[in-house]
């Protein structure tokens, strides 16, 4: 990726410093710092239990880190409720699918539009001009996302009935429906076959290339990470052991040691 150095040098959208998260006596994340420039794609990798998902949970407000700062567009996200952070434009795709199973694909995507629907409860009860207009306008946006992700055929299906790969796609759609500035992807291609992985990679590249959304992606699929990430953050036991462009990280002795064990 030639765009990598420029993206990394740009004004950081997200700047995390000294992040520390403890559960009782266990330290899940220890003094981790990183940044993500506007429109860049940061990949987080590391062995199981390294604290990757915990970092995303801190960013989206599900966990409250004890120390450190999470500066996002000049605001400190630490201590904010998840719904407040979401309204600031941080969207999330989960490792284990967290869709609303009893709702249709359309309703799931419309829930992504929640923060963009600006009418009150009274308007909803009456379903008059304002609510009706807002619903229709946002439906239009949702339909564009449905087109983009090529899920037209299943828009009316209950999400619970869909196969795994499509659920992942719907979840990406729900996150996109939020029109996020920062998109957190937790293993977007886990459990997918080659074809589905390629589709997802194409969507991720399109999201960055055409929508300019900044992304932080946790992924174990190294081929994907090396291909599409601008920066790679490597964690091991909650510590940052490397941060840099993919090619550089790949050769880092600390990373090799974490993944392959002590060199003989």
């Amino acid at each position: 990726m030639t765009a990598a150095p420029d993206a990394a040098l740009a004004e950081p959208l997200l700047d995390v410093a000294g992040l520390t998260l403890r559960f009782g006596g266990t330290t899940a994340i220890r003094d981790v710092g990183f940044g993500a420039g506007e429109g860049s794609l940061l990949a987080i990798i590391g062995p199981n239990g390294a604290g990757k998902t915990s970092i995303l949970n801190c960013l989206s407000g599900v966990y409250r880190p004890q120390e450190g700062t999470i500066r996002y567009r000049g605001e400190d996200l630490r201590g904010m409720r998840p719904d407040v952070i979401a309204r600031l434009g941080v969207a999330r795709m989960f490792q284990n699918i967290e869709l609303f199973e009893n709702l249709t694909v359309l309703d799931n995507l419309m829930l992504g539009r929640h923060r963009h629907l600006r009418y009150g409860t009274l308007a909803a009860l009456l379903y008059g001009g304002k609510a009706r207009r807002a619903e229709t306008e946002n439906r239009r946006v949702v339909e564009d996302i449905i087109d983009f992700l090529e899920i037209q055929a299943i828009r009316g299906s209950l999400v619970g009935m869909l196969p795994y790969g499509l659920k992942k796609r719907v979840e990406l759609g729900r996150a996109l429906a939020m029109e996020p500035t920062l998109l957190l992807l937790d293993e977007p291609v886990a459990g997918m076959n080659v074809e589905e992985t390629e589709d997802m990679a194409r969507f991720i590249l399109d999201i960055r290339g055409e929508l300019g959304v900044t992304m932080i992606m946790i992924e174990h699929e190294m081929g994907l990470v090396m291909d599409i990430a601008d920066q790679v953050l490597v964690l091991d036991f909650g510590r940052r052991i490397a941060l840099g462009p993919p090619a550089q990280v790949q050769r880092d002795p600390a990373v090799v040691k974490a993944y392959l064990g002590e060199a003989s």
Partner: protein
Amino acid sequence: MTAGTVTRGRSTGTVIRGRSTGAVRGRPLLRTSYAAEQAIWNTPAKRAWTLALVVAVLALPFFLSRDLTSLMTTVFIMAIAGIGLNLVTGYAGQVSLGHAFFMGLGAYTAAVFGGAGDDELVGLGLDMAVWLPMAGVVPALVGLVVAPLAARVRGLYLAILTLGLVFIGEHVFKEARSITGGVGVGRAPAEPVLFGLDLRARYHVFGYILSREAVFYFVCFAIFVVMAMAARNLVRSKPGRAFAAVRDRDVAAALMGVSLRRTKTLAFTISSFYAGVAGALLVVVIGRVTPTSWDLFLSIDLLAVILIGGIATISGSILGAAFVVLTPRLVSELADVVPFISTSPSSGFLSVFQLQTMLFGALIVLFLVLEPRGLYGLWVRVRNYWKAWPFSY
């Protein structure tokens, strides 16, 4: 298709000007606008059947006896309460056993604002246009106060917490004699005088004599339609989706920007409003009630309404209300025919009351096991069968 269109927005759906339904002649199921698809009655069949049903309901009191008319009025009222409970329990997933309390609160609020006062009872004797909204607003406010507590717990704990409301309520109702009349005495309900029109009198309309039961039937039907429509609007728009999101995955809901506390509070508040209105209307139909009427059994009846009718459906709540209100009557009619059922509690093998309690219990178990979507689910099965007929797939 490229990603750029996501932000640009495009003009999908060729809206045919001047056709509000969005249907094309000869192709009734082809929808050409989002508004047409999002409509409540989005197929011609739904429109036709709803219209037929409304006509039937409006004609009914002219053919029914007065006590059956009152029974049908009770169906509408229980449907209002059931819709309220379904909003909080079915849609928002917050189990509430406390709805008897809110119904009682609504009934007494109405009695205070609309009932006749004397030296023992507080009563302002206001018009129904005042006491009916107040019967909803006061329970809603109490719901608003209780909700932050309720929003902190879930599942079984919430069931116990709301159960506590019923017992606290019963105690308060028993003790507040100047409002409720006290145990064994009770008080007369609020007076149904709407905009100066006395709903207890008979009216002559186009040569027909409308009994007071029929007059109240029409009034309750109108209130029911308005409240059912409002609930349906709620659940198909932003707050309703937020309810379902909180029910299905609360963490994911929060990460969509849905405030859990606000959403649960809203569900409790609106639901209490519905319960209060239903309570106020219910006493007008059944007359003087003692404070012990608002007990756990009423709450369980309401749960039966939504469990038998169909969780998280508005039409299911209506079916459930009809079932729960009409079945006891049917059972007692049967008592004359079936030998071992007696209408008096002391004689015979089974009394009507015992039979109906057993019947509800058995039905709730059967529905939970066999068709969790309730009567509504059965209806969906029947509909799908005939849609595919004569093929079985």
